[in-house]
């Protein structure tokens, strides 16, 4: 559903993404992990059509984002890490506007928007201006918008930031339900527990290159085998050994 082939993004002499290839199948939740500045967001923004790759290509639902951007975008839902939305629109108006951009017909749009708001626990905020929403509410509203046009694939950048435990649980349930219905989800996250709990496969990116890929047990096997969690593997693969010096620095 989402296919990335040898994707490269250079800013002058700096290479942010260096030959990344990925394949997210229908119904799969694919975790995209890596330390800060590894190239996760840049990769996701190229898939969403926000950035033009220096080379390589991105296919969404069989459509090349560079050649058929409208067709590719029509199959894709994008959830950015920071939920910037039009502050002077109400939640309902924003969803109707978003639906209109994706060509959803007016008939049934209101009902669909309302259903999505109820699903994301925002039903009673339908007629309130977005400017009065908290960060977590805006994040959930962006997710409503992403799932409103029934996308075939979803790209999510840090979905759990700013969400309370109830919201996080809700999002996990929604993502599982959507993947059960065949939606391919590519999710970048720093929360390793979330990746471990939800993802079918995980790719770890470092300095613009994929350095590990596999199912959770496969990734875990790359560690020393003594830890049930991904943290030690992640630190081992991404060079987090500097953490051992913390005790000395903190004193």
């Amino acid at each position, binding site marked *: 559903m989402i296919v990335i082939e040898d994707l490269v993004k250079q800013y002058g002499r700096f290479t942010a993404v260096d030959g990344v290839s990925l394949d997210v199948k229908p119904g799969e939740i694919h975790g995209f992990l890596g330390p800060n500045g590894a190239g996760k967001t840049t990769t996701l923004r190229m898939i*969403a*059509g*926000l*950035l*033009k790759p220096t080379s390589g290509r991105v296919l969404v639902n069989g459509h090349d984002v560079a050649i058929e*951007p*409208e*067709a*590719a*975008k*029509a199959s*894709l839902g*994008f959830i*950015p890490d*920071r939920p*910037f*939305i*039009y502050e*002077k*629109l*109400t939640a309902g*108006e924003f969803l*109707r*506007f*978003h*639906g*209109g*951009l*994706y*060509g*959803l*017909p*007016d008939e049934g749009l209101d009902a669909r928007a309302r259903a999505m708001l109820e699903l994301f626990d925002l039903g009673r905020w339908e*007629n*309130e*201006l977005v*400017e*009065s929403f908290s960060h977590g509410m805006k994040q959930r509203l962006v997710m409503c*918008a992403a799932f409103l046009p029934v996308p075939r694939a979803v790209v999510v950048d840090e979905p759990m930031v700013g969400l309370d435990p109830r919201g996080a649980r809700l999002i996990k349930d929604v993502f599982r339900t959507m993947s059960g219905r065949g939606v391919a989800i590519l999710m970048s996250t720093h929360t390793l527990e979330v990746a471990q709990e939800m993802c079918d496969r995980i790719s770890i990116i470092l300095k613009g290159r994929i350095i590990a890929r596999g199912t959770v047990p496969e990734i875990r096997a790359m560690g020393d085998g003594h830890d049930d969690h991904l943290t030690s593997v992640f630190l081992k693969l991404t060079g987090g050994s500097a953490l051992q010096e913390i005790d000395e620095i903190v004193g």
Partner: protein
Amino acid sequence: MVRAFPYLLRPHLFATRNRARRRERGDSTRGLLFGGIGVVVCAVLFQASTWLTGQLTDYAELGDYLLRLGLSWLFLTFLSFLAFSGVVTALSTFFLADDLRLLVAAPVATRRLFHARFLRTLAQASWMVVIFLVPVLMGVGWARCAGPGYYLMSVLTIVPFSIIPVAVGTGATLVLVNTFPARRARDLLMLMGLLFAASLVILLRFIRPEQLLRVESLPDLTDFFATLQSPITPLLPSFWAGETIFATLRGGRDLLHAGALWTTALASVVILRAASERWYFAGYSRSQEAPKARFTRFRSLDFVARALPLSTVRRQLLVKDMKIFLRDVGQWSQLLLLLALVLVYLYNFRVLDLQRIPYMSGFLKNVYAFLNLGMAGFVMATLAVRFVFPAVSSEGHAFWIIRTAPITLRDFLWSKFWTGLVPVIVLTEFLTVVANEFLGVDPFLKVMAAFAIVFMSFALVGMATGLGARYPRFGADVSQAAGSYGGVAFMLQAVLFIIVMIVLLGWPSSIYLMNQFRSSSLTFAQQIWILTCFASAAGLSIVLWLTSMRAGVAALERMGE
């Protein structure tokens, strides 16, 4: 170690320094352009005040009286401007600025924070007044051959004169924020300020000052001076500043009024600091609250949009833009000022008494028709730079929604164009037709002007939309975007375009009118010439319109590179 309050100004100073160091495309042009405009404005102000003071010197006692009156009026005007500017700036610097979260959470005493913020408020609220006052006062001093004492005293007068109204404005903000939530207070202020400005413009015009120039109204001159004198009261700092400067200009010293200025400035800062220590945190805390916003749903807008023959995407873009515009007080309230200016503009043509020059009235009417066309062009350019140019920038950080949606950026930009075009064309067409009707110009010119406005609207709105897409300022508010490099570049191009259009339309029209005046018919060569000029004007408009839009779309598409 507790550092002195100027330490708190460091981030602002560093940011300014870093901004100056960072080179961006167009920096030199922008610097030259704004610097050049600034120098020209200062030179004109200096020259004008020198000339005026020189003229007044010829009238001895009366001249001195008028100069004294003029100085009081000058300071009085700035007094209200500074107070209002102080209110608006203080709202931002004391209550809404992003860095306040860091500073209020840090172990910084309210008193230190107050000093740092007040200094910043003072600088931000008064720099424009100071830049305006300096060449004017220098011009006055130059014309009266004043010594160095005069210039020193001018500086010593401007400083406390600026402090007093800004302190009063900051105090008013403190009260307002403790009464209303800060964001609502800002909207309220914006609306009040613009209503005040609009009513002032209308009031000043409807007094009909041009009557004073008529010989038959000379007996009313004493009444006129009495009217001028009435708002000047010895209790206001503007009067003290005027008197201090005037006394120094005559070689004397007015220590009473200078002392009044300095003691009042000091007292106002001390009182404000005490009030701030008592109420600042309560106000800041209130400004953090997010009250349930009051707003209008504009359901009728959805209903009307559904009736329009538009695609779903264009309809949704239109409804979104309209609702955002109408819910932002800072945006729509500017229309009030615009409405006032339009009323004054039409009223001018209504009261224009061309019959007083019987032999020239026919000729003048037609000249005024072109003046009217030029004025309509400038109104159009102003509207376009203020409301159309920032259309892309107004998407702000939410622009990702458009860029990730399955629509082309071409569709998006054209939607912005049509949304901007309709109100601009309606308003300027109305202005031109009504003004030409009031003037009673030749029917040929009426038709020509009506068509010209259509072409000019397309060109200017296209240029504004295109340049707005080429030079967007997503992080800035709408007025900042309008005043940015792209906005200024648009205004320069717009002025050039209007001048070229007036020439292309005025020249052939004069041939036609001249022939009509002589009751002779146009020769074939003249007809070809007239048609060529009109076709060139239409062609130029269409080329500008389409190339600007195309460049705008290309710039948006390059954004992801």
